[in-house]
């Protein structure tokens, strides 16, 4: 028989809450970087520049529902620190430990912006962020 693993919604919700809300902890951060995206969040950055830093809500998200975790409001960075081309973003703990890395682009990426060209002093906002558990 072919592989066909299915997971109950309650388990998906619990997994999302643990993997993201608990892992990120309180007052997490979203940083947008230029440069080559590391293999995964356990891989150290290498020559990457932080273009913008946005503050997550004190609690990253309310409990997942129907296998979807929706981030609470994210505070815009009113003045980007550096100029560059955004290539990836991370969700981090308040202490700066990366927990999630995702791609940045203008379409078809994990985080889609109207432009990946960020100039120092620009306002950078993320208006929505959801994480969906499949299967």
């Amino acid at each position: 028989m072919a592989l066909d693993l299915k997971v109950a919604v309650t388990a998906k919700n619990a997994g999302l809450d643990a993997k993201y809300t608990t892992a990120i902890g309180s007052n997490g951060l979203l940083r947008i970087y230029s440069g080559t995206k590391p293999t995964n969040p356990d891989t150290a950055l290498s020559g990457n520049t932080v273009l913008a830093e946005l503050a997550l809500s004190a609690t990253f998200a309310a409990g997942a529902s129907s296998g979807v975790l929706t981030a609470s409001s994210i505070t815009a960075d009113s003045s980007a620190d550096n100029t560059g081309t955004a290539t990836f973003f991370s969700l981090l703990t308040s202490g700066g430990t990366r927990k999630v890395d995702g791609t940045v682009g203008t379409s078809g990426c994990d985080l889609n912006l109207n432009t990946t060209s960020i100039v120092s002093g620009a306002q950078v906002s993320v208006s929505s962020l959801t994480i969906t558990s499949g299967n």
Partner: protein
Amino acid sequence: MKLSITAAGAVLPPGSTTHAALESGTQTVSIDGLDESGMVRCVYPDGFVKHHQAETVENLATKVTGQLRGRYGLAEVVFTAVPKALEAGEAFTVEA
């Protein structure tokens, strides 16, 4: 479980921000140490926290200036004191 992230946002030109309130008078931006990735943790006058990727005080001053202009709308930023080093307890002071 296969996971996917869907996120959307916008980049707006400098000067697009609605400014946060900042009381007039002497204000302090203090260094609260470095985070685990080596970024400098700065605490702004209203308690707002932002980390800056900086290796020198001069470089950090540029970024703090940008934040004071962008977030608080200060047209002119003149520091009356600057940190001696990128260490916890050091601070910038500025007249708002």
